[in-house]
């Protein structure tokens, strides 16, 4: 029995459907339990075949609904109508994704109002959080008036079109990579209509539109030809209508000005056609959220006017709750929550919560047996579907009576179909007790051009020419030689000497990236300087390659322990992982296990950013070792990290008889002695700790696996220690430092490396604010975070004034507990502060950029950076990566000096980060720089000088060559 059929078979549902179809009055609140609302909504959408708008309280719920509804119905009919990132009255960027999704939703409804336009084959279901609905938008009349259809062979001037597009909010660019952009080259026009998945290229012959074809923004190549294209506005405020605002030239009218340009308050509700239905998640709840939003906005308005950043007569940029209710009442709407406050409806009474098993599979399967015998229709939706199904098939009761589906739902229910018959929907929540379903990743509509990876240098950049050395790139220059015109890349070397590189030799050049980020010294042209430098580096890399090979051959002949294949318990442990492993993660796990099962000692490096799931790989390896009666040591660089790993291991291994212990300064001497004794006797299976583990008094009865976290943060003597261990026991090294592909390849074969590149399921985007330093905003941000029980990072990157900053903050927010952390503190004090912060004893961590990598504190969800314009882009990304790791919405504030204007580059970096997209050239270049710098760490500080003298690109190439010659020689 199909699940929606079960709902359709209910009398109460049929009655509701009839009333809706006939336009009869409908009950004010159905009082449905939450997990039953979405399948009901899906059934209504299918049966009514009308545009539906589903309003939720907050964005988080809207996103979860989008994910879950995709399980119940056709994903392509679903639209999300997001709320803008800035608060009402806050003038900040809306973001590409927000704009696109909102315009998409508006378009999907507006097409119902076009005369003669064909209806979409599927009615849309738009999901919107309340604040998105409240946000004022472009009036429908203006939206429709400014939408135009273009057809092949149509006579129209390309110049006229471009003017028109600018007027409706499209931006002229050189290459179209985002929705809302257009580009012109000769007789070719490219445009990306926000409502379209792909941009479209038009070729003109004079004033005749010759061809229309969709193209892939990533390759810029044609995908398919089309006959017509509907061009809709690219903004919710049209520049052509905003002329009277008299804004300065460089400041185009953005959505902040909607209420000034369009006096009549309009919302998405005006876009709904007469034949449509609004469904409200829970009216009472919505009302309280609506009131909260209004209160907050009134307050922000007052403050902003006092501060002089908002005009006193600025119109209200949203519809009030009262206005929303009025609008709703002029439409047809249905509340799924309990707004009537009376008896639950008959429909609601049919649903009940299902039984819960919290991961105890035996009673769960017994219950399934019973359902199977009684022939109750049952559907199991789980992320562990294949495993459950396999187990069920062993149980005997006609296996196909229970239906299994892969999926992730928040909760299930049981539905009473008749006196004897119940329909059971069982999910991971009932079976395993997992609360949060896995969010799905969303495709971002921003592409990289095919040239993106070549966009890393521009005039003024330091570059390396393989044959001539380091110089500054001046630009492209035209020269006529022998009466023939040609273009060259001009590079300036020491003493202002210039080198002209023919364009077909541009591949001899690469951007200079040094280990420190400092400017290099340009090479002198002519003479042997560059040749000698290269020679020195060549010798140095030979040494590196030789070292690696020596270790490698020692390991080849060394005999270690060959671990047994996976035990059934191993499968149990792996199945209890509450997420779906990424592909990289699975590959890494398989590689580690294969290494362990070989007699040769493992020496594997596992690279992956914080939060990408390295710990889970380590955990499974550790468990495997313990299953063979071996002990595991896990070495971490800091006490805080030791604590974090210790807690994770304890939690994940709770169901198994595995002894996990920790040695660190947070254990009393007596506790330490006891742990050391038990370790020596073999009673401790997994011992996690800092370098304390390496002291001579710590001995293992039978060590089988050593896990080293962030090896580069240990000292030289420790590293020598590791080197010896590598030929004796299996060693797994973890690092959060991204490793460049080129280096990875130069080392492949002599060093076993697994890389986890896939980020886990998407986190909520971090709301990013940039602007001059404002004590008011700082206070507001800290107070908001503390009010919801969270913590704050405050980055102030100058040690000498950090105490003064603490006094300033304490005065601003007297109620906050503030702690200081910087690299010049002694290790003990630093560890204590970090420990207090993780434990929640400190509210605000005032620190230098030492937090930029590795730290994972899910409860810290606001980041404030003082003088953000002084940081490099890669650093800014890393800093922001500290927040937004938990389920909470995170905020990042990057302030610049209050009065001093930032450098153009500094401002540009801040703008890139505020754009909040993870794609685009800026991002990938920043990431590449980061990787290169990380590679320096990986190779050891001794190599830094050599890397600096030729840059990373050339260094890795030389290393690869060096390695090849050591191997053959």
């Amino acid at each position, binding site marked *: 029995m199909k699940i929606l059929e079960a709902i359709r078979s209910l009398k109460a549902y049929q009655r509701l459907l009839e009333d809706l179809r006939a336009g009869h009055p409908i009950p004010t609140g159905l009082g449905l339990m939450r997990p039953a609302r979405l399948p009901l909504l899906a059934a209504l959408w299918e049966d009514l075949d009308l545009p539906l708008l589903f309003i939720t309280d907050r964005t988080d719920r809207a996103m979860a609904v989008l994910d879950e509804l995709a399980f119940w119905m056709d994903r392509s009919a679903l639209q999300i109508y997001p709320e803008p990132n800035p608060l009402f009255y806050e003038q900040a960027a809306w973001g590409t994704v927000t704009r696109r999704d909102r315009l998409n939703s508006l378009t999907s409804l507006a097409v119902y109002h076009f005369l003669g336009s064909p209806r979409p084959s599927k009615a849309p279901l738009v999901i919107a959080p309340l604040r998105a609905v409240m946000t004022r938008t472009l009036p429908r009349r203006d939206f429709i008036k400014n939408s135009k259809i273009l057809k092949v062979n149509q006579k129209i001037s390309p110049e006229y079109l471009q003017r028109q597009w600018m007027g409706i909010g499209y931006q002229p660019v*050189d290459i179209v990579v985002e929705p809302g952009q257009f580009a012109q080259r000769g007789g070719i026009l490219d445009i990306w209509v926000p409502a379209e998945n792909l941009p479209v290229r038009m070729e003109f012959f004079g004033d005749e539109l010759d061809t229309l074809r969709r193209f892939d923004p990533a390759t810029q190549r044609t995908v398919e030809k089309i006959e017509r294209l509907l061009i809709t506005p690219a903004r919710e405020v049209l520049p052509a209508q905003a002329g009277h605002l008299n804004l300065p030239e460089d400041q185009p009218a953005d959505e902040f000005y909607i209420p000034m340009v369009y006096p009549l308050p309009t919302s998405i509700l005006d876009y709904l056609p007469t034949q449509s239905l609004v469904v409200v998640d829970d009216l009472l709840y919505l009302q309280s959220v609506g009131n909260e939003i209004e209160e907050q906005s009134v307050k922000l308005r007052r403050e902003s006017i006092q501060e002089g950043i908002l005009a006193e007569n600025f119109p209200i940029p949203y519809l009030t709750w009262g206005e929303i209710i009025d609008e709703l009442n002029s439409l047809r709407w249905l509340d799924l929550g309990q707004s009537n406050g009376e008896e639950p409806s008959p429909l609601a009474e049919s649903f009940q919560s299902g039984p819960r098993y919290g991961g105890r599979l035996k009673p769960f399967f017994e219950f399934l047996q019973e359902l199977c015998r009684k022939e109750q229709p049952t559907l199991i939706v789980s992320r562990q579907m294949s495993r459950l199904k396999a187990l069920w098939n062993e149980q005997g009761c006609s296996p196909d009576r229970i239906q299994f589906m892969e999926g992730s739902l928040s909760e299930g229910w049981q539905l009473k179909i008749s006196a004897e018959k119940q329909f059971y929907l069982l999910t991971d929540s009932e079976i395993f007790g997992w609360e949060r379903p896995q969010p799905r990743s969303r495709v971002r509509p921003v592409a990289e051009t095919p040239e993106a990876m070549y966009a890393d240098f521009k005039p003024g950049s330091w570059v390396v020419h393989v044959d001539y050395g380091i110089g500054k790139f001046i630009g492209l220059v035209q020269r006529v030689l022998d009466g023939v015109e040609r273009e060259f890349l001009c590079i300036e070397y020491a003493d202002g000497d210039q080198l002209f590189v023919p364009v077909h030799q541009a591949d001899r050049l690469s951007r200079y990236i040094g280990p420190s980020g400092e400017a290099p010294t340009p090479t002198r042209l002519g003479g042997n300087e560059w040749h000698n430098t290269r020679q020195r580096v060549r010798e140095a890399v030979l040494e590196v390659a030789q070292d690696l090979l020596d270790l490698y051959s020692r390991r080849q002949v060394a005999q270690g322990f060959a671990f047994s294949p996976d035990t059934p318990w191993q499968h149990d442990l792996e199945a209890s992982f509450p997420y779906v492993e990424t592909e990289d993660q699975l590959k890494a796990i398989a590689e580690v296990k294969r290494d362990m099962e070989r007699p040769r000692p493992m020496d594997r490096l596992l690279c992956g950013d914080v939060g990408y799931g390295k710990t889970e790989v380590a955990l499974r390896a550790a468990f495997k070792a313990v299953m063979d009666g071996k002990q595991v040591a896990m070495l971490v660089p800091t006490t805080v990290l030791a604590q974090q790993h210790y807690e994770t291991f304890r939690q994940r291994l709770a169901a198994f008889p595995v002894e996990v212990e920790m040695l660190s300064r947070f254990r009393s001497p007596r506790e330490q002695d006891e742990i050391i004794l038990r370790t020596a006797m073999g009673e401790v299976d997994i011992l996690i700790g800092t370098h304390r583990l390496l002291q001579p008094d710590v001995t293992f009865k039978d060590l089988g696996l050593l896990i080293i976290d962030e090896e580069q943060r240990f000292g030289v003597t420790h590293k020598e220690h590791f080197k010896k261990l590598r030929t004796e026991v299996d060693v797994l090294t973890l690092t959060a430092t991204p490793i460049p592909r080129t280096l990875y*390849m130069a080392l492949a074969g002599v060093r076993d490396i697994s890389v986890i590149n896939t980020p886990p399921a998407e986190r909520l985007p971090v709301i990013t604010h940039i602007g001059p330093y404002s004590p008011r905003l700082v206070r507001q941000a800290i107070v908001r975070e503390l009010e919801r029980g969270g913590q704050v990072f405050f980055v102030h990157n100058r040690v000498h004034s950090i105490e003064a900053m603490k006094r300033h903050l304490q005065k601003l927010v007297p109620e906050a507990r503030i702690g200081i952390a910087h690299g010049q503190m002694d290790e003990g004090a630093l560890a204590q502060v970090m420990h207090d912060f993780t434990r929640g004893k400190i509210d605000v961590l005032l620190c230098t950029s030492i937090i930029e990598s590795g730290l994972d504190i899910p409860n810290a969800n606001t980041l404030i950076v003082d003088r953000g314009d002084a940081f490099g882009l890669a650093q800014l990304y890393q800093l922001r990566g500290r927040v937004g790791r938990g389920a909470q919405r995170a905020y990042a504030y990057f302030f610049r000096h209050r009065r001093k204007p930032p450098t153009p580059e500094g401002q540009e970096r801040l703008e890139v980060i505020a754009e909040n997209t993870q794609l685009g050239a800026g991002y990938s270049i920043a990431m590449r720089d980061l990787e290169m710098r990380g590679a320096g760490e990986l190779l050891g500080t001794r190599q830094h000088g050599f890397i600096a003298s030729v840059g990373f690109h050339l260094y890795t190439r030389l290393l690869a060559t060096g390695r090849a010659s050591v191997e053959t020689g």
Partner: protein
Amino acid sequence: MKQVSGLEKAELALDDLREVSMAVAVDLPLASGIPSSYVPDQQTRLNLYRRIADVKDQAELDALATEFEDRFGALPDMVRNLFYQMKVKLLAQEAGLISVGVENDQAVFRFPPLPESVETRNLPPIGGSIRAGKNAYRMPFLRDDPHWQDAILEAIVAIQAAIREPGIEKSGVQ
């Protein structure tokens, strides 16, 4: 010690690891480049130049030409010449040449400089109008000949074939 453990062998051949070989200079009397009327943005033009120069084989080069037509419209002569220049560069690279150029009515196909102690490379004869020198091949060059571009390509192909012939393969430096 040629073992490749753990990782896919194929990946090792990746171009990023190409040896730091010598640059091939192509110096022919052709106006070449990307005119600003074709691609107006200077940064895009620079990126495109770097992309073209980085092309590794003929197939990639052809694909790029098709892409240019799709994105920017029919190829102007200068761009066509740029692609031709790249084609010469790729062929020359394969043949082990260090430069292809024109000197006094002669097209010269030169190999990397010889060590001081070595007099000649002992290049095998090719025939036709191509003459073997100590370290280079030469052939007559007429600017007005409408077919000189093809002739150059054919010559490089012939050179490559000649020096690759079994037995002569090692003839390089003696």
